[in-house]
C-alpha cells in the first residue's frame, strides 16, 4: 500500500514537471526571439509591421507584404476547405458510419495528413499551377499560374484532415437520445443535422478549424514552391506573393549581416505572435459559443 502511494507521488511529480517544462519552453522561445531580434526591433520599431520594402542590400526591412501574404493564404485556404471538411465529417458520421467504404474514406482523409508537404508542393507546381495558368489566360489576367490563389488551394487540401477528423469525432459524440428525440418529433435527417448535430458539436468543429488554420499559417515548403516568392505587396488574390514562413526558409541560410539576420528572426517572432493571437481569439469564441456543455 505504502509502495503504491510513493509510486503515485512520483508519477504526479513527473506530470507536474512535464507541464511546467512546456511553459518554460514556450516562454524560452519567446525570450530568445525577442533577444535575437532586438537589433531589428529597436531599429525599425513599429515600422517593421507597416513597412512594405524588404531590401537586404540597404538594410531596410518591412514585413507587411509577408504578413498580408500569410493571412490571406491561410484564411482563404480555411474558407475553401471548411465546407468540404464539414461535409466529409457529416457524411462519415451520419450517412456512411460503418463498413468498408467508410473505412476507405476515413483512412484516405487521415492519410492526407501524413503526406509530406514537399509532395503537395510538387503536385501544386506541376499539376495545379498549369491549370490555374490556363484559367488566368481564359479570364484575361496576367497568367503567372503561381501565386496566392494557387497556394491557398494547395493549403486548403493539406488542412482538410484536421477539420474533418476532429469534426467527425465530435459529431459521433452527439448523444443518440437527443437525435432520437428529434426524430420522434418528426424531424427529417437534414433537420436533425442542421438543428441538433451542428449546434451541439459547433465548438468542437470550430476547434478543428482553428487547428487547421494554425497548420496553414506555419506551412512553409509547399507554399514556397507555388506562391511565386515576390516581396511586393499583392494586388489581387492571383498575384504572386510571399509568406512569413517562406521568407525565413528562403533567406535564412545566406543572411550574414546582423541586421538582416535579426530582421528575419523578428519575422519568426511576428509569426509566433500572430499564431498565438489567433488561437487566443479562437479559444475566446469557443468559450462564448459553447452551448450544450
Amino acid at each position, binding site marked *: 500500500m505504502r509502495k503504491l502511494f510513493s509510486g503515485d507521488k512520483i508519477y504526479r511529480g513527473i506530470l507536474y514537471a512535464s507541464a511546467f517544462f512546456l511553459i518554460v519552453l514556450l516562454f524560452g522561445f519567446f525570450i530568445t526571439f525577442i533577444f535575437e531580434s532586438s537589433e531589428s526591433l529597436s531599429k525599425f520599431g513599429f515600422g517593421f509591421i507597416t513597412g512594405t520594402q524588404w531590401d537586404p542590400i540597404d538594410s531596410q526591412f518591412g514585413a507587411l507584404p509577408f504578413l498580408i501574404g500569410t493571412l490571406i493564404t491561410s484564411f482563404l485556404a480555411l474558407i475553401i476547405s471548411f465546407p468540404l471538411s464539414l461535409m466529409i465529417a457529416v457524411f462519415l458520421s451520419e450517412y456512411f458510419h460503418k463498413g468498408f467504404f467508410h473505412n476507405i474514406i476515413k483512412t484516405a482523409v487521415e492519410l492526407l495528413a501524413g503526406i509530406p508537404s514537399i509532395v503537395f508542393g510538387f503536385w501544386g507546381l506541376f499539376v495545379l499551377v498549369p491549370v490555374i495558368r490556363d484559367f488566368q489566360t481564359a479570364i484575361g489576367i496576367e497568367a503567372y499560374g503561381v501565386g496566392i490563389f494557387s497556394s491557398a488551394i494547395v493549403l486548403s487540401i493539406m488542412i482538410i484532415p484536421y477539420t474533418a477528423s476532429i469534426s467527425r469525432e465530435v459529431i459521433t459524440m452527439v448523444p443518440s437520445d437527443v437525435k432520437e428525440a428529434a426524430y420522434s418529433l418528426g424531424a427529417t435527417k437534414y433537420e436533425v443535422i442542421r438543428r441538433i448535430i451542428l449546434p451541439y458539436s459547433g465548438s468542437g468543429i470550430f476547434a478543428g478549424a482553428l487547428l487547421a488554420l494554425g497548420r496553414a499559417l506555419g506551412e512553409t515548403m509547399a507554399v514556397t514552391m507555388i506562391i511565386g516568392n515576390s516581396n511586393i505587396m499583392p494586388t489581387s488574390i492571383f498575384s504572386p506573393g510571399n509568406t512569413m514562413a517562406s521568407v525565413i526558409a528562403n533567406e535564412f541560410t*545566406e543572411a550574414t549581416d546582423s541586421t538582416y539576420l535579426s530582421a528575419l528572426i523578428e519575422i519568426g517572432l511576428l509569426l509566433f505572435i500572430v499564431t498565438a493571437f489567433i488561437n487566443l481569439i479562437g479559444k475566446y469564441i469557443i468559450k462564448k459559443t459553447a452551448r450544450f456543455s
Partner: protein
Amino acid sequence: MKNISLMILAVIILTACGEKKDMKSLKEGVSGTTEILGAGATFPFPFYSKVFDEYNKIKGVKVNYQAIGSGGGIKQLVSKTVDFGGTDAFMDAQELAEAGKPIVHIPTCLGADVITYNLPGNPKLKFTGEVIADIFLGKIKKWNDKKIAELNPDVKLPSQKIVVVHRSDGSGTTFIFSDYLTKISKDWETKVGTGKSLDWPVGLGGKGNQGVAGLVQQTPGSIGYVELVYSKSNNMPAALIKNSSGNFIDPTISSVSLAANFELPADTRASITNTSSADGYPISSFTWIILFKELNYNNRDENHAKEIVDLIWWLIHQGEQYAEPLHYSPLPQQALLKAETILKSVTYNGKPIKE
C-alpha cells in the same frame, strides 16, 4: 557448388579487408590526423566531392565537406570549427578584419550564370547587359520590344509579355548576376544593387536553381538565370551575351575559364564579371577555398596542417581534370599561378608549409 564457396570466401576476405581499413581511418580520425573538415558553398559541391573522393582513393585522406552555403562556410572558418571554408563570394575587407587573423583565398574553379528563357522553338538569342538589366528592372515588358529585336534581327519574337524569374533564396548565383548588372547599368546600381538576396522590382521567385528552372520551363514567355552547370546538365537554352570587347559569347566551359584570363590581383579576390578578356563570358565568377594563413591554431599539429595544404595543392592541379566532365570550368593558367603563390604563403609557426 565450388564456385559458390569460392565467392563466399572472396566476400569474406573483401569484407575483412574493408573492415580493417575502416578501423584504421576511424582510429586516425579520432586522433585528428587524416580527416579534413570543410564547409561552405553549395555551388562547387559536386566538383569537390568528386575530387575529395578521388583524393581519398589515392592518398587515403578523408575529406568531409558540408555544403551549407557560402555564408555558413565563412562563419564556420572564422569560428575555427572547420579546416577550410568554401565560398562563391570573396570576403570583403570588413569581414576579413572581423576574422581577426589573416585569411587567404584560393580559387579552385569557375562558374557562370546563364540567361535562359522559354519561347516557342527556343531560338538562340543574343543579349547585352543593358537589355538584361532593363528586363529584370521591368522596363522592357514585351518580347518584341525594339531593344531585343535590334539584337536578334533573324528571330521572329512574339508579342508576349516577359515573365521574369529570379532566385528566392539567398544565393551566390544571384550575387554574380547582380554584380554584373551593377557594373553595366547605372539604373540597376541605384535601384537594386549587388547582393545574395535582392529587393526585386518585378518577377517570380524560385527556390534554388531547380526552382528557377522549373518556373522557366513551365511559364511561356519567361526569362531567368541559372548556373551554367545546371543549364548544361538539363539542356536548357542559353543566351549569348555581349562582353566588354563587343563580342557575343556563348556560355561554355572554355569561355568561362577565359573570363579569368587577365591580370588578376595578387590575392585573387576579384570580381571577374564584365571581364576585359576578349573571348571571356561576362557573367562568370571564381569559387574559392578559404583558410587561415597561419595554420597553428586550436592545437593543430604540423602534420595535419601539411595535409590540408597538400589537399588543396592536389585540388588545383590534378583535381582540375574532374572539373570539365561535371561542367565546371577549370582554372586558366594565370589564375593557377596566382593560386600556387598564395598557397605557398600559408605557414605553420611562421614557416611556409609548401616549398
